[in-house]
């Protein structure tokens, strides 16, 4: 098939692949009757099984595929990852061979590692202090195992808002990945506006209201979800999706893009779960072959790959004042069709669980201090255990929005129902409360003894 010639004069479109890698520490069937009797909360066997399965079906083969692409296309192919601290811990423990496999990718210099919270938490919404600490922990962990993460930030599930962007800016980050949620893109436009395509396109880069120094890179959800969700959907009119067809679609965007008129390269953010490859879309769907062929097709058409840092830098060089402003007083995300927070909070059991775990923060940190926070010390273990409970997945499992539809929440949940997820979580919280209180009482006693 011959590549059609690009129209003369148009600027190159920047394509940015970003893959999210994450696994949570799932809870075991921890009964309330075990409170005070057992401090082992996590399902070692299940977590190990899933991690090894995903490593074999996705991480290892896909890493090799990306490495091949880099060898094939030289410096022209680029990509970015975010890898959570929890999945790094699990790789270390259950599939250590995966870590060097990722490390090789980063060492090519063409694959960027993004910054984020260590525990894939909702701390940005509940505790600025914990948010900062988890970002620092993530940096340390990545530096030890892989490479230091970049100055571009991606929050858990792309949860973003003007307020979160401000926190991110204060921590010294220059860019942030976000969803091009329709309700955010429409915000602030007059009713006469012809729609998102005019000046609210995901092809633009933006600055956030209240955080003028942070470049927002947006996920092109249509093109991203064509790969992540629709690729193997036989009811989809476009099935089967070929790399040829996909490259063609991006070309249409390029031809119509509103950015060219304003100067600057259009930006196409292809952001998705890394587990899309081989796990959500199984190998027999042809997803690997698709990805193997796609970069070549796109490069032939004159597109260029960029890393998030490159995309941010070019925007900053052109001047932040050039960028349109996005105003997002309420957080938005890449989850579900609502693109809001309702995947993790909003129903009674989610909210009470979140309240319960974050109410423990102060006591847990005090106890951790008292017991010693150096690696291996009891305080460090207590704090790490608590942090594993802040992972957003626990609250995702408690979502009841689409309970009857056998929905995506259920697909990912290791528990029988959202209610069972809540019960297990609250049982563990009860034991954490007891531990903290118990320790308090003991320290009170020792104070009395020394007095």
């Amino acid at each position: 098939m011959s590549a059609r010639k690009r129209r003369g004069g148009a600027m190159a479109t920047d394509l940015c692949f970003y893959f999210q890698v994450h696994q949570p520490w799932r809870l075991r069937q921890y009964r309330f009757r075990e409170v005070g009797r057992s401090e082992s909360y996590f399902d070692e066997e299940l977590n190990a099984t899933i991690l090894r399965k995903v490593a074999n079906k996705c991480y290892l083969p896909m890493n090799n595929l990306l490495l091949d692409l880099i060898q094939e296309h030289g410096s022209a192919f680029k990509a970015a990852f975010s890898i959570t601290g929890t999945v790094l811990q699990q790789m270390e423990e259950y599939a250590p061979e995966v870590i060097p496999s990722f490390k090789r990718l980063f060492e090519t210099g063409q694959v960027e590692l993004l910054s984020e919270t260590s525990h894939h938490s909702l701390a940005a919404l509940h505790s600025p202090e914990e948010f900062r600490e988890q970002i620092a922990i993530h940096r340390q962990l990545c530096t030890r195992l892989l490479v230091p993460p970049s100055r571009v930030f991606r929050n858990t599930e792309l949860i973003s808002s003007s307020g979160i962007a401000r926190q991110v800016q204060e921590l010294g980050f220059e860019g942030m990945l976000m969803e091009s949620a329709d309700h955010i893109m429409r915000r602030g436009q007059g009713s006469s506006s012809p729609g998102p395509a005019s000046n609210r396109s995901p092809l633009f880069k933006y600055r956030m209201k209240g955080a003028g120094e942070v470049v927002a890179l947006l996920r092109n959800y249509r093109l991203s979800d064509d790969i992540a969700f629709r690729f193997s959907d036989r009811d989809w009119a476009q099935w089967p999706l070929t790399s040829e067809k996909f490259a063609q679609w991006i070309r249409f965007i390029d031809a119509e893009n509103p950015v060219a008129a304003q100067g600057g390269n259009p930006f196409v953010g292809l952001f998705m779960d890394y587990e899309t490859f081989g796990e959500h879309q199984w190998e027999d769907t042809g997803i690997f072959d698709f990805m193997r062929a796609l970069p070549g097709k796109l490069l032939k058409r004159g597109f260029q790959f960029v890393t998030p840092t490159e995309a941010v830098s070019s925007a900053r060089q052109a001047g932040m004042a050039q960028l349109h402003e996005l105003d997002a007083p309420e957080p938005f995300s890449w989850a579900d069709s609502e693109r809001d927070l309702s995947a993790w909070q909003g129903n009674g059991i989610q909210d009470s669980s979140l309240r319960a775990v974050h109410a423990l923060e102060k006591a847990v940190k005090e106890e951790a201090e008292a017991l010693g926070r150096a690696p291996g010390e009891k305080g460090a273990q207590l704090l790490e255990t608590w942090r594993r409970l802040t992972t957003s997945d626990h609250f995702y499992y408690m979502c009841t929005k689409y309970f009857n539809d056998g929905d995506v929440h259920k697909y990912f949940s290791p528990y029988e129902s959202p209610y069972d997820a809540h019960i297990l979580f609250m049982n563990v919280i009860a034991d954490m409360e007891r531990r903290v209180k118990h320790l308090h009482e003991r320290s009170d006693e020792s104070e009395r003894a020394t007095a």
Partner: protein
Amino acid sequence: MLGWEYPPRYAGGLGKACRGFSQALARQGAQVHFVLPTFPNRISEERLEVVGARECLIEAGWPDTETPTEVPTEVQRKAGSITHSKSPAELLPYGRAPETPMPEHIRKIFESRIFSTPGNFGKALRDADPEPSVSVTEASSADDYLGTGYEDHEFNEDTEAVAASLRERILAAPLSEAQVPPPELLGANAEIYGKNLWSEIEKFCFSVRQLAEFHEVDVVHAHDWMTFPAAFEYQRITGVPVFLHVHATEYDRSGDVLNSDVFRIEREAFNRAAHIFAVSKYTAGIIERLYGIHRRKISVLYNAPDEATQTLLTAPDAEREPMVIFLGRMTFQKGPDHFLKAAALVAEVIPEARFLMIGTGDLNEQMRALAHSLGIEKRVQFTGFMNPAQVDAILGQSKVLVMPSISEPFGLVALEAIHNGIPVILSKQSGVREVLSRALQVDFWDHEKLADQMIAALRLPELSKQLVEEGMAQVRALSWDDSAIKALHTYERFTTPAGNVRQKAPRGSHGN
């Protein structure tokens, strides 16, 4: 419509379901003539009449002495049904099956005269014979009232094999050799009422046969096995199609120590029926797999909340007692022993938790003994039978209702609990979970998990609140009218197209 219970003559969910369904059928335009074996005070509503066969015959000039056998306990039984003071009698068909062999003269009715003489059945029935036949097989999958997709229920190949071997074992048992359950499962009164039930059934057959002489209807709709012989007796005379409504099978009542005579009656009736309505996919699955009936002959008619139920002023969660409720017959099927075993685990960690067992049955004494041996006798209260008002009052003061049934075709009481603002824990072996998915669910044998859910309901008010809110939305979506409309559509398939039954009133039965 043939039934054994109708309020105020009822003992449990069956009576309420019969009323809810009949009233909805009448609302949808059908003329409903509900006949019980006996019903002293006839009910007449618009397009709905509820009568006793015995009373009808007396009214029509038949001498009461014409009934085949003298049944000395009948008066007692009737009285019991009204006052609820003699509940064991009423409960019998849903407790353990009669323990005595089927008497020879009843067998005659069941075997020679009804079930073994297909020549006597009308054309409509032959069309609907269990062998693939025109009217059944032509129903396309688009018809939502045939084979309502219960195949998604949790049966696997293992269950299939177990069901098949169980069926063979039951059918291999020599006739008239009742499957005698272990003595510890026998209630004190089982023998007396067991003898009684067979003759009740025979009497009903007899009186319905007489009614057929002067009552014309388009279809017969029979509720549960006690009425099946009478339904086919009616058909033998008139040729109208018979629809069976299964609220419980012998398997649900007795597990795998089921009574082979009852099982045979059910199986034969399922084979003969034009169509079978099951109260859940769970029950439809049992009919298909254990009884070997083709799934296209079965569809699901869900129960709905009793329209007479008033919403209680349930106390706010914080003000309710830390009380866990078991409500149902104290029989093997309802799993009271599993309730107690889980309760003992709860009692270890929640000192203030208390347990209330409402209901009576053949396991009364055993359950008291079990509570004792588990060391929780001071925490468990056995109330015996309570009337609906008393039950509601207690429910409104409790934290959670548990239904640990071993096999529960539906479980109407779960809807009532939710309706009254009380969360429920359902066994996974229950039909109601198909319409009340937003409930805590557990395998009845998983005492650790059941205990954990009880504890959660006691200590997590946000969970209880959400379970009630989300469950209420599901309960509100249920309607007897939906079931009635579905049944009417199904009747139509067997009455209008061939025109083989009657020309008028294609939508349902009409009396007089």
